């Protein structure tokens, strides 16, 4: 230990050494183009103690499991429980899906995910769309019977099910009916309504259009209220930054818009008399992990910190479980290339490491073939193995928040926090996220960022290996031929559906639809409860969606170039 009298002298030496380094660096490098990350934060060549505001403070950067959770939301983090490996699946008919699900569960998957066909997302039954498109991107689930078949052999009282289920949440309704038929109490049912964040769908479009903005707002609140009361282990709210970042938002924009959306939803729940200590612990988040490695780590650390303050100070939650920023993350598909596709394994690995160091709770690693097809079986296995290798061979989970205290990462976390808060301020000034989406402000910002990124790639400022640099002869052999769902099986599924529809009592269908309308017209009614009743009475996905579109308004896409 140095004696106190030596301290000023040591500081002088350190300062002289820094000046020496800087001189040598400048002389060697000459003129240098300024570097900035995707979010526009300038990046210096070296960070030291002077760059980190918290350096030297006794409580910086804090401890995991303690507010403001910069280093992680749990005391044990990945040492205790690593993360949920939730690989998305969904294809073909319910029979096809069930076979694939049971197979991956036999191989060790512990959670269900269900991606429905784009026809389901769009609120159409299979007999309303081009048959060529059925089951190519997800499973065709149009009623409670189909859901029951999808989940045959799965214990709904034990297994967590993540449903990609936008408003009005017909898939959850079908699943609750299936649970009821099996005699399972809803209080045991657990999982997440992915895609309940309707604002993100309006921003990024994607495939989810169903209800008008006011209609979607109403149904979401009904859904959260219903789940809080009747399905208490269900997570009804997943706030999604992933759509927006895939659509071109910078990491800072994606985090800011997501937090602003979460505030919007939470404040509306509070406005309806719900208790933040009850509903906020059931809020989860879903993010993209791009290849901007340190920027992503800082994005997650900053987001976690901001949410802890928002939940406590702005939303008034007193229970620490409400302050914890629980998130699922998916490696970015936009960063993958069709050229030299095996390179994507390296990209996904780097993205996954950033997410792990960022402190995620659940991870989906993309398959290397996602730049040219819906993932094949072999590629999906490599994606899962990547997670196992990082966790068990590379020992990434031995230490909690291993980059905590790094001058660069801490400084960048602070800078990202500042940037995110500034964007959130813009959204607040525009009247909150709902109005910022309604007016198109958010869409314009994202469109501009997408264009800026494309220009960086086109100009070569941003290298993409195999695309604008290090090009090699195209190896078509690395891209296997794609298989689509078996047309004969899909034809049978269609025929069975037609027979099921015809066998129903028209009077019972009409009565169930009228009940939906009554719930929609009654401001104190719960539309989601009526959706569950409709599913039980035998309404199909399209019947429920089109009736609610009629009663609550149809969402027209906003398009900006």
């Amino acid at each position, binding site marked *: 230990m140095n004696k106190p009298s030596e301290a000023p002298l040591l500081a002088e030496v350190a300062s002289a050494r820094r000046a020496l380094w800087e001189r040598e660096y400048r002389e060697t490098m000459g003129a240098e183009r300024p570097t900035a990350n995707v979010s526009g934060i300038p990046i210096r060549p070296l960070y030291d103690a002077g760059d980190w505001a918290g350096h030297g403070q006794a409580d910086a950067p804090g401890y995991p499991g303690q507010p403001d959770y910069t280093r992680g939301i749990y005391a044990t983090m990945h040492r205790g429980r690593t993360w949920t490996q939730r690989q998305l699946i969904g294809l073909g008919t319910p029979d096809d899906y069930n076979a694939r699900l049971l197979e991956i569960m036999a191989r060790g998957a512990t959670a269900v995910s269900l991606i429905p066909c784009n026809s389901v997302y769009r609120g159409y039954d299979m007999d309303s769309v*081009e048959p*060529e*498109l059925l089951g190519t991107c997800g499973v065709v689930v149009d009623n409670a019977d189909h859901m029951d078949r999808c989940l045959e052999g799965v214990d709904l009282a034990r297994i967590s099910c993540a449903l990609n289920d936008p408003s009005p949440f017909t898939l959850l309704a079908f699943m609750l009916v299936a649970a009821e038929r099996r005699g399972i109490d809803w209080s045991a049912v657990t999982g997440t309504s992915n895609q309940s964040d309707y604002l993100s769908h309006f921003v990024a479009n994607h*495939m989810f259009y169903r209800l008008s903005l006011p209609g979607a707002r109403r149904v979401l609140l009904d859904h959260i209220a219903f789940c809080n009361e009747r399905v208490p282990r269900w997570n009804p709210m997943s706030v999604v930054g992933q759509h927006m970042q895939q659509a071109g938002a910078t990491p800072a924009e994606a985090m800011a818009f997501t937090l602003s959306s979460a505030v919007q939803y939470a404040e509306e729940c509070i406005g309806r008399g719900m208790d933040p200590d009850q509903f906020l612990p059931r809020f989860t988040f879903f993010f993209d992990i791009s290849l901007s490695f340190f920027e992503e780590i800082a994005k997650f650390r900053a987001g976690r910190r901001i949410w802890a303050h928002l939940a406590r100070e702005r939303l008034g939650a007193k229970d620490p479980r409400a302050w914890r920023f629980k998130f699922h993350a998916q490696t970015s598909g936009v960063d993958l*290339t069709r050229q030299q596709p095996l390179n994507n394994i390296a990209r996904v690995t780097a993205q996954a490491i950033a997410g792990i160091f960022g402190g995620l709770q659940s991870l989906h690693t993309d398959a290397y073939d996602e730049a040219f097809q819906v993932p094949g079986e072999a590629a999906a296995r490599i994606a899962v193995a990547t997670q196992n290798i990082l966790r068990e061979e590379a020992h990434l989970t031995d230490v909690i928040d291993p980059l905590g205290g790094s001058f660069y990462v801490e400084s960048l976390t602070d800078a990202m926090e500042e940037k995110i808060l500034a964007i959130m301020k813009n959204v607040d000034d525009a009247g909150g996220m709902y109005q910022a989406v309604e007016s198109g402000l958010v869409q314009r910002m994202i469109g501009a960022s997408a264009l800026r990124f494309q220009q960086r790639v086109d100009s070569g400022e941003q290298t*993409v290996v195999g695309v604008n640099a290090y090009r090699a002869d195209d190896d078509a052999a690395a891209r296997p031929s794609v298989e689509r769902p078996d047309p004969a099986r899909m034809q049978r599924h269609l025929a069975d559906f037609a027979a099921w529809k015809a066998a129903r009592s028209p009077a019972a269908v009409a009565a169930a639809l009228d009940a939906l309308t009554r719930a929609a017209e009654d401001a104190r009614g719960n539309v989601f409860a009526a959706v569950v009743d409709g599913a039980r009475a035998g309404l199909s996905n399209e019947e429920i969606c089109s009736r609610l579109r009629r009663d609550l308004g149809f969402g027209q896409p906003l398009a900006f170039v």
Partner: protein
Amino acid sequence: MKEQDGSFRPRVLVTKIGLDGHDRGSRIVAAACRDAGMEVIYTPPWQTIAAVVKLALEEDVDVVGISSLATDHLIVPKLMQALRDAGLGNMRVVVGGIVPDNEEKVLLESGVRQVFHPGGTMDEVTTRIRAYAHEARAAGEHSEPGAQP
């Protein structure tokens, strides 16, 4: 149809058919075509084939650009047939997005002029589209003499 200064101004419809709404690509391509001096007609996603044919006819476009990120390209052969049925066989159709090799072959056989894959620069894409617009005009003038003002 020449501009007053004699320069050629291609007319391009940028759209999405089918069920998917991922529109980052179509928006970027539309903006790039506009910035390259073309006349761009842009639609939101989820257009029907019939709506695209009607718009292409009304707007008298040279090139139709279809963006497909989630298998919607599987119905592009139906669009090609519908365009021919409407007498728009001279229009050039290009597809951009995620299209597997084996299905690209099917699209080209159905008359699609080119499939753009991820990774191309906007400059390459707009250069090709301009060339196809020239082709479409030349074919139109050849088959329908006097039809153009």
